[in-house]
């Protein structure tokens, strides 16, 4: 391509910090596989990994993946999108959504193709960034200056370490306005920038911005691996001591015969999805999965509809498989899981009956509790499919729920939950108000006001536990600070030159 704007010499000049460090091609390349080639390969590898061309390619791949993962949300829940596109090494990209569903592929054509996934692209970006730091962002100073700079950076890094391990007294709640907590963060970024300035001079901004990006990518990794997200629906006056994970159903078998407690045995939904028969000593009977539906609807039995159920509520209604709920739909709806379970006697191996269990039979989803009663050996067990429960050391009691509207409209102005928080292990017993943008932080978890249960019958709190919550804050400030320093420096140079000219 011909390019009129600048001469090659000029390009060498403008882009010098980047291109000057790229390895120069040698006159005679050593033979492939020889010792010389291997040495050269090892010497060149970091440079290749740090290549800006690789960066550009990774950006292009990331943009495409993001687009594909966005349009596919029309037909899939965001949970599916995460596992199919973003939190995976190899994404399976569906083709029809890419054309906004305007094109319908003929049957013989594949519906999807494989593409580098979020983990892979993100990982490569991380490697690319780290390699760039190693090979390209060269320290230009020696001696005492070098040590001073390193010391300042070490102090900054230590402060970041203290911050993300919650040792600086900075809390997410303190960051919801212009507060001193922000000042602490800005101070840390200033320390990092100063250290980088001592080592890298005019490249300090770029170095810190890219370092911030490394931290940001790592934080998405931490979130993907360790964060827990669930809900806590509480009826008015009710008390709850567990978090429910909606996207993960579990089959629970309850033995209510002990006088002072219930004995619950839970089977994770992933076991049900696998199908087959589940045998365990803790279960009073064997569980054979006839059908498991990630999303379903209930219909009335009628002619031409086969009913797999032979006992329980399944005789009155039939669950039918439904496509997954969209993550982008106008109505944000949850998948309604259902399953047909054949209960088999452990001793005789004879089937007792096939039962329907469903989210629709759970009051947190279908507004009624309808456990299936299984009688076996003179004992009655309750069997139900419900959100996976994660029990907590604390209990939340809903004292009052307030739901205010803008005058003359149905638009919500405020949802507030007034709760009593009790935790015997920490001797905590206090009243708390949780409302929009004002969550409760407790036990390394954050409880947010999410929505309302039925017609103001109670509240739904969202509970999140994310050990890396502070990382995005500091990394964002590092990137923004680095870019401001860098671009500001360029701008001032430019303006000075214009003034001089």
């Amino acid at each position, binding site marked *: 391509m011909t*390019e*009129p704007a600048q001469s090659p010499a000029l390009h060498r000049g403008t882009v010098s910090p980047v*291109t000057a460090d790229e390895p120069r091609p040698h006159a005679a390349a050593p033979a492939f596989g020889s010792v010389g080639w291997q040495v050269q390969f090892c010497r060149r590898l970091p440079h290749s990994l740090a290549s*800006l061309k690789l960066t550009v390619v990774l950006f292009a791949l990331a943009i495409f993946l993001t687009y594909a993962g966005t349009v596919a949300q029309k037909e899939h829940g965001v949970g599916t999108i995460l596992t199919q596109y973003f939190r995976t090494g190899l994404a399976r990209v569906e083709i029809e959504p890419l054309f906004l569903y305007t094109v319908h592929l003929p049957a013989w054509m594949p519906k999807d193709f494989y593409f580098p996934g979020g983990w892979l692209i993100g990982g490569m970006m991380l490697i690319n960034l780290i390699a760039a730091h190693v090979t390209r962002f060269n320290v230009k100073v020696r001696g005492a200056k070098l040590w001073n700079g390193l010391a300042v950076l070490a102090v900054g890094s230590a402060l970041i370490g203290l911050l993300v391990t919650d040792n600086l007294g900075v809390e997410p709640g303190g960051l919801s306005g212009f507060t001193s907590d922000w000042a602490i963060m800005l101070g840390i970024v200033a320390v990092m920038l100063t250290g980088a300035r001592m080592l890298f001079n005019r490249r300090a901004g770029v170095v810190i911005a890219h370092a911030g990006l490394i931290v*940001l990518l790592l934080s998405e990794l931490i979130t993907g691996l360790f964060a827990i997200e669930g809900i806590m629906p509480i009826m008015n006056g009710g008390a709850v001591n567990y978090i429910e994970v909606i996207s993960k159903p579990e089959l629970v078998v309850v033995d209510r015969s002990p006088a002072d407690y219930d004995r619950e045995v839970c089977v994770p939904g992933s076991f049900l999805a696998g199908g087959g028969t589940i045998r365990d000593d803790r279960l009073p009977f064997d569980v054979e999965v006839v059908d498991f539906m990630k999303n379903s609807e209930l219909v009335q039995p009628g002619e031409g509809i086969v009913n797999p159920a032979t006992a329980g509520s399944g005789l009155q209604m039939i669950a039918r498989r439904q496509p997954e709920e969209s993550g982008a739909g106008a109505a944000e709806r949850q998948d309604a899981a259902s399953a047909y379970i054949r209960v088999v006697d452990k001793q005789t191996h004879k089937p007792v009956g096939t039962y329907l269990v469903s989210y629709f039979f759970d009051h947190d989803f279908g507004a009624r509790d309808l456990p299936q009663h299984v009688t076996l050996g003179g004992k009655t067990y309750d069997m139900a499919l419900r959100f996976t429960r994660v029990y907590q050391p604390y209990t939340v009691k809903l004292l009052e729920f307030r739901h205010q509207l*803008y005058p*003359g409209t149905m638009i919500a102005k405020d949802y507030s939950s007034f709760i009593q928080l009790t935790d015997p292990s920490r001797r905590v017993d206090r009243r708390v108000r949780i409302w*929009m943008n004002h969550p409760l932080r407790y036990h390394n978890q954050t409880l947010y006001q999410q929505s309302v249960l039925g017609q103001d019958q109670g509240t739904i709190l969202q509970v999140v536990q*994310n050990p890396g919550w502070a990382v995005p804050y500091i990394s964002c400030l590092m990137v923004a600070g680095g870019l401001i320093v860098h*671009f500001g420096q360029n701008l001032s140079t430019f303006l000075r030159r214009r003034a001089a000219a």
Partner: protein
Amino acid sequence: MNPAPGHAPGTPGTPAESVAPVLLLRRESLFARWFPWVIAGLTLAYVVTLAIPAADPPGKMQIQEFAKLPIVYNGRLKPFDTLARTTLLQTSGRQTVQIPQRDAKGELVPGPDGEPPATHTEPAVRWLLDVLAGNPQSLDDPILRIENDQLIGALGLQVRPGLRYTLNELRSKIGMIAEQATAANKKETDQRDAYESAVLKLAEDLQLIMQLQSWQEPHAVPPTEPGGRWIALADAAQQAQAGGKVAPGAAALSAMAVAYGKHDAPAFNQWLAMYKTDLEAHLPQAVSAARVEAWYNGFGPFDLTGCLALYLFALLLMVFGWIGWSRPLSRAAVGVVVIAWLVHTVGILVRIWISGRPPVTNLYSSALLIGWGCVGLSLLLRVIYKRLTLITAVGAIAGLITMLVAFGLAKGDTMEVLQAVLDTRFWLATHVICVTLGYTATYFAGLFGIVYLVSGLFTNNLRDEQTRKTLTRIIYGVICFATLLSFTGTVLGGIWADQSWGRFWGWDPKENGALMIVLWNALILHARWAGLVKARGMAVLAVAGNIVTSWSWFGVNLLGVGLHSYGFMHGAAWWLILFVCSQLGLIALGLLPLRWWCSFRPLPEDSPPHAAAPA
């Protein structure tokens, strides 16, 4: 590290004298020197006439004073004027009403050769008063715009210019409309076809008007004690019938409606004056807020006659300037753009004051801010690069397009209240503004990308090295700041989400859209630094940035409404597709070999070395 391109040591410098403007050498005539000032003065005078509030002559019914009275409607304090305008805008697509002419007996005067009677334009508030007063003639006002021809047919009506129909024409069909709307309402938004959506909209419009007719809306009666609630006139009447006290506001308002119905101007004005004095004593803040909003409505900085007309005027001046007499015309254009931008600024500031919120709360206001940012940036660049008069045209185009987008988006009250979750000033103020300015900068770079491609392809302008460098430098610099702003805005959005929902990043469509802009800007910068693209390549990539930004701005919203069946093919979607196609066309043109470009084609004789030599 990378100074703006073209500033590296060792650049074969181009002496500025070699391109010294020729125009300066010639002495301008007095007229040419004063022309820009005359135009600026006229423009200013025009703006002042817009800003002077409308008033009725003394002795006549003081309709415009009535329009300024405060009410509460849809959760927000506003004047009657806003209610009248937004209701009409929603039902008929415009802020005024065409009232059919009547003869002395009150009979409709038929048009010259057809059925539709001749009409005259009246302010929206007159229509509102007709409705509130229960004036039967208001049933013949064409205020319901029905765009779906199937529906027009089903209602037994004829397609007519303007597609606006009267309540009387629909009178016998109300049952049918209600029935079909109920059926359509049972379907999910994205499952409805065009007909069903149209029926539903018509039913909603009818309901809106009926609520006004029956005095259930607006909440016009002020509270009697401080901190109390505004109530509807119908409720106040009910309270009075039940033996309660008649709220003084209710008495005054209903008396005004009665007086209006009887064309009794003195009584109307008397009640109005009394009511106003009373309100000013008890609720001075509400009165002044409503007054300001009524003034803003009348001024209409973002109506067709406001900034939009001014930007268009500036652009026309620039276009004429390219034909001839360029210096005075382009200077005049700068003056007009400055005035338009000031009006734009005032408009945004008044909106902030009225709503008590940061400038961006919905798509409409984001269009206003993007336009404001683009025009402001162009004025700033015009100060830095005085020689490149083109910048003014770019600014005017940006202003014009964003005003048109905003005009298309204004379908009702543009300052409506927000869902509880969005109601945090701090995050709205930081995240949304940052992201919107990021959009602004990306579009601005894209506009200059277009300028680079078009002037290179079709003109000889890029033969001048200085122009070429300046354009490249602007694109590069603006992309740098676009990267900074869009990154910061996107991450601040993540932090807001973390504060509100406990998760930093959820990969939801809107977040992804913002992320794509960040990635795209970063891609351009890194491609530039890697030497993969140079001036032309960067211009092409910047144009593609327009597509990415539009996807994030609008495409994502369309995704939520529904891509299937008719959903995606409605209004805004067509414009989006059209825009994307135009940008793809420009990109294709930009990829043509340079020898086909006007600016880089070798000249047959005495070719200047810097233009023809491939670099």
